[in-house]
């Protein structure tokens, strides 16, 4: 995990053209040099509800 890890690195330029209804977000064709890998090393992660974490993980003390 030596690289800096911006998993999404977008070049965001929001254009509001004179009479356009919406906005365009320009994304660079190549990712910048300091992006992370497309998939995190672990690939899967789990969220455990904060209040129930001790129930899941226990404590180190008997």
């Amino acid at each position: 995990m030596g690289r800096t890890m911006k998993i999404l690195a977008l070049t965001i330029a929001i254009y509001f053209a004179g009479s356009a209804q919406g906005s365009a977000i320009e994304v660079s064709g190549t990712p910048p040099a300091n992006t992370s890998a497309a998939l995190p090393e672990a690939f899967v992660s789990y969220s455990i509800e904060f209040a129930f974490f001790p129930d899941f993980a226990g404590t180190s003390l008997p």
Partner: protein
Amino acid sequence: MGDFTGTKPYIRVGGNTQDYALYNVSLKEAINGTYNPARSVDYPTTIFIGPSYFDSYSTWPDTKFIHGFNLGLGGNNSAGWETLLETVPLACKALQGGKLLWWEYGNEPDLYSTSSQGPVRPPTWNESTYVKQWLNGTQAIKSQLEKYCPDMTSNATYGYYAPSFAGTNNHLKPITTWADGLDVYEDIKLISSHKYHPHTPLTKSY
């Protein structure tokens, strides 16, 4: 999972209850939670954690964690702010030596002013106020880390999952939030956004 992929799953400790947890140094138990069915039947909404809460980070070897700090109560009252300052050293010591993946500050802040468990921000809550509070709190986190866990303050060891919105079309919009400077310190390592299965209600009513 670890055997299949070569790396154990990351464990993110957070959710709605991360934004209710207040720290009580005298609490002998890891956690003391009180349910209020009018607010939620699924989890306690009055929560105190003690020092031994953080022992739970030592029971699963070779695992990386994301620890979520309290912005819900932390950003607008002194007990919550004290909790932040007091739990940063406890969390960083529990997660040193490679157990920390990244930090999180606040869960689903885009719902703070509309939460069906009871809003924790006024109707005037908006992206720029959120960004101000997030930057303020994360700078305090960094400051505590510099004091108590200085080896966890480099670009490789210090960073956040953010903004952890509940969706892309709630009260705070992600692009506005980003444009308002959420990443001005370039410490957001992963842009996080929650996606609920279409059959899971975002809010529950009883």
